[in-house]
């Protein structure tokens, strides 16, 4: 057979201002992270919202890593899907990286060594910069030759995309304040990259950045840092943890801020204790001990840690001890995808431990809510005397996200819940540790050491009567279990309420989502609305679900439940808790480990609606 040469269709180069996706394909450990972050921050400083995402391996050096930056003037911060400009710095992933580029998109690569034509695509624009060559000419130390390639491609990009060089110089100045030698070396590399493009390449590209004013007072930080600050502000004094991706940076950030803001100026002593425990069982055990003794304590972990903590979670539930657990979820089961994101611990946390249990879950959507909910969890744990989970994930926890500034009311007093004092005991107030006095299911507790002869009790995981006396009598057990259920019902009115967003016109379709799905969902809504598909949405922020969730579902024919796990875990929780007909709450699930995209959600919902033949 005679092969007919295929002529690639001429695809016009992509053209967009302040609305594109650029992806950096690097080798882990090559020093690219700070250069890539510099790139993202420079666009932010030009008043244009960005959302970067680290896609990294469980590895310290050598494996592929990516940094994807979405530039979007309108402020869509979810992953869009597709790549408009690929900076391909990793030969290992070259082929796959090239495939990801949108037709008409751009490829920036190191052109030092010529590559065969077959290694490229015909429908993309090639931007070859001889990075290795320039480095070899300008630096002598091997490590510098490697390292400065990164700043050099940022220099090249600044010309190609019209990023103001002054902004990058300012950022470099901030980063290397007091380290003049490093600053000069970085500045030199930056200009080498710029000069090459200015002298040898057509510029700017169709993709451009233009100064805008759409960032305002917003801040740019990751959820783990924000949650750590929430624990500092919320009054946590004991942090016990065991290193696990993607939660470790949370405990480390807590340490950093405590060292800065929690040292008693008079004595130089610490108003905090951080223990890196021998495992997650010990971590939660220490938190249980501290909570029992009246200190605010938390642990931070991920899925495998939750599995190990299960027995203690049951003890804390049954013996009624305040515990705060921040679970930065990752891909499971087992070791799963430890450096990828998922919302797959929802059921494991909601019903953690053996026997009949139910736990309070808080579901932050971004770093701002990580801060607020971590502080709130410490209050709720004390108020409800029970474990409270903050369920964040790798996407929120480990990526810098543009979000509202953190706020704290100086008049705020910690809610320590129902703690009976020595004075109240002395006055003869009846103390039944497991007695429902106020009708809300929440009993009173005493801290150890409160009173010489009143208020002591023996805490245990075995059944007991309202006065904490060991009992295996059926009625005592049932009273207690019913009271715990009643307490859980009380929690319904204390947890953050869901956020409703009504469509422009009344609609029979709804969607429920939570956590890191939020930015992609918001954008998907506008995509669907543009196509004439209207959806009311409800963003859940906590479990137990307030009654408004049931009402929302009842008010719609179909409610899509959008989440990032295989089994529709929150959907199962809704069906179970509200006794729903599963057919009324179809699942929209994304669980390949990458953050869910607006394109995916809009496509999946449009397809379902189309298949059902209605809804427009």
């Amino acid at each position, binding site marked *: 057979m005679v092969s007919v040469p295929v002529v690639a269709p001429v695809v016009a180069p992509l053209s967009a201002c302040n609305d594109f996706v650029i992806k950096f394909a690097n080798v882990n450990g090559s020093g690219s992270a700070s250069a890539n972050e510099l790139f993202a921050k420079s666009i932010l400083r030009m008043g244009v919202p960005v959302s970067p995402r680290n896609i990294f391996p469980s590895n310290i050096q050598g494996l592929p890593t990516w940094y994807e930056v979405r530039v979007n003037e309108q402020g869509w911060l979810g992953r869009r899907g597709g790549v408009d400009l690929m900076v391909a710095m990793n030969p290992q992933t070259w082929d796959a990286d090239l495939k990801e580029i949108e037709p008409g998109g751009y490829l920036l690569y190191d052109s030092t060594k010529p590559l065969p034509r077959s290694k490229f695509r015909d429908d993309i624009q090639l931007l070859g910069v001889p990075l290795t060559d320039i480095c070899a000419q300008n630096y002598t130390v091997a490590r510098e030759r490697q390292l400065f390639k990164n700043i050099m491609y940022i220099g090249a990009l600044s010309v190609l995309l019209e990023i103001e060089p002054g902004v990058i110089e300012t950022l470099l100045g901030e980063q290397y304040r007091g380290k003049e030698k490093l600053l000069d070396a970085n500045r030199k590399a930056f200009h080498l990259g710029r000069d090459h493009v200015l002298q040898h390449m057509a510029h700017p590209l169709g993709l451009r950045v233009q100064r805008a004013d759409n960032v305002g007072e917003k801040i740019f930080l990751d959820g783990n840092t924000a949650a750590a600050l929430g624990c500092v502000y919320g009054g946590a004094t004991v942090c016990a943890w065991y290193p696990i991706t993607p939660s470790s940076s949370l405990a480390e950030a807590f340490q950093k801020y405590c060292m800065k803001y929690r040292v008693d100026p008079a004595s130089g002593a610490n108003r905090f204790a951080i223990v890196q425990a021998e495992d997650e069982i010990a971590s939660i055990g*220490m938190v249980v001990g501290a909570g029992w003794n009246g200190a605010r304590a938390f642990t931070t972990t991920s899925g495998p840690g939750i599995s190990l903590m299960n027995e203690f979670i049951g003890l804390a539930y049954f013996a009624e001890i305040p515990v705060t657990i921040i679970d930065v979820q990752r891909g499971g089961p087992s070791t799963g995808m430890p450096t990828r994101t998922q919302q797959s611990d929802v059921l494991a946390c909601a019903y953690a431990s053996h026997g009949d249990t139910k736990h309070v879950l808080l579901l932050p959507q971004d770093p701002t809510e990580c801060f607020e909910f971590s502080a709130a969890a410490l209050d709720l744990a004390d108020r409800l005397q029970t474990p409270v989970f903050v369920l964040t994930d790798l996407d929120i926890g480990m990526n810098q996200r543009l979000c509202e500034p953190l706020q704290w009311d100086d008049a705020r007093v*910690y809610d320590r819940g129902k703690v009976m004092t020595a004075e109240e005991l002395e006055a003869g107030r009846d103390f039944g540790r497991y007695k429902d006095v106020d009708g809300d299911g929440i009993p009173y507790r005493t801290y150890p050491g409160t009173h010489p002869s009143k208020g002591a009790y023996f805490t245990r995981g075995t059944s007991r009567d309202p006065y904490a006396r060991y009992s295996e009598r059926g009625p005592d057990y049932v009273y207690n279990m019913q009271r715990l259920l009643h307490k859980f019902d009380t929690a319904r009115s204390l947890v953050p309420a869901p956020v409703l967003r009504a469509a422009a016109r009344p609609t029979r379709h709804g969607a429920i989502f939570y956590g890191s799905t939020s930015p992609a969902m918001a954008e998907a809504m506008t995509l669907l609305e543009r196509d004439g598909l209207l959806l009311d949405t409800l963003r859940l922020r906590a479990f137990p679900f307030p009654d408004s969730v049931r009402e929302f579902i009842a008010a719609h024919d179909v409610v899509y439940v959008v989440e990032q796990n295989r089994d529709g875990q929150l959907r199962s929780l809704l069906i179970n808790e509200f006794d729903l007909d599963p057919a009324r709450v179809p699942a929209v699930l994304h669980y390949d480990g990458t953050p869910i995209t607006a394109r995916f959600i809009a496509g999946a919902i449009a397809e379902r609606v189309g298949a059902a033949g209605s809804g427009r």
Partner: protein
Amino acid sequence: MTFIAKPKLHHPTLPQNALCFTRRDYEGKISTLCAGCGHDSISAAIIQACWELNVEPHRLAKLSGIGCSSKTPDYFLGQSHGFNTVHGRMPSVLTGANLANRELLYLGVSGDGDSASIGIGQFVHAIRRGVNMTYIVENNGVYGLTKGQFSATADQGSTSKRGVVNADSPIDLIGLALQLGATYVGRGFSGDKAQLVPLIKGAIAHRGAAFLDVISPCVAFNNHAGSTKSYEYVRAHNEAVNRLDVIPEREEIAVDYPAGSTIEVEQHDGSRLRLHKLAADYDPRDRIAAMNHVQQRQARGEVVTGLLYVDAQAEDLHTHLNTVATPFNRLGAAELSPGSAVLAKINAGFR
């Protein structure tokens, strides 16, 4: 299960301590363990030690794991808060409790199953952190509550009640504690209260991780010929290295021993440990020598008891963590929240 209420009556002439408490004020609920159980003798020794030390009962927190031994905190110090945690995990709960309020005394009660098997990891790490506590293992070499299985401290070659020979090597908690840096290490025998009470008193007065291995025969499942944890065996093989007197601060020394026959150690709270030597060459201030001595005697089938090691000026976890003197559970937002002005600065750093 405590079905029987303990009578509150007591003899009017019972002696009182400096706090005007009698020993009865240090008692708890009536024990539900078997008659003759070594654990009840240890509870009695704890009561005696706390009474003699003038411990305010409510200023002591008692924590335990799961098993016969771990039930006992319900049977002493009824005015103390107690926490019967989960199997093998008392050390972590005690560590957290200790961090929350450094002013209380912490007594951890555990068993050989609880500390040498399921909880060996937590035992090891609480010891190496130097948690300020008295950690007592009521060691009977057997799982009593589940009816007689060998525990990890049962000696190799010893037999179960049914005649099964234990083939596994024993875990020596004393050896572990010494190696891991416990700063007060002793072994007692539930059948020797005169030796045990001062060992407990010294441990409570000690700052740092104090560990006591107390051989406590299980009358139901491990008190037969062939057991090395029976009353008979321990009585026959008990090799005490010293006799301990704990002398509170400022108290005169009543008994005089001949010169060279005692070692005196002052602990950081001012109390003095006076050790009357029974083994002439034994110095409990030398950790490595202690390990050597204990290992050699154990190899001969002897049960070495007494205060085996003490570092009287030890540091504890709070020292290592440089925590403030005020208990954490008394700190409020004024001391803990950095405030909105600081947060505004933090926000500015994120732009």
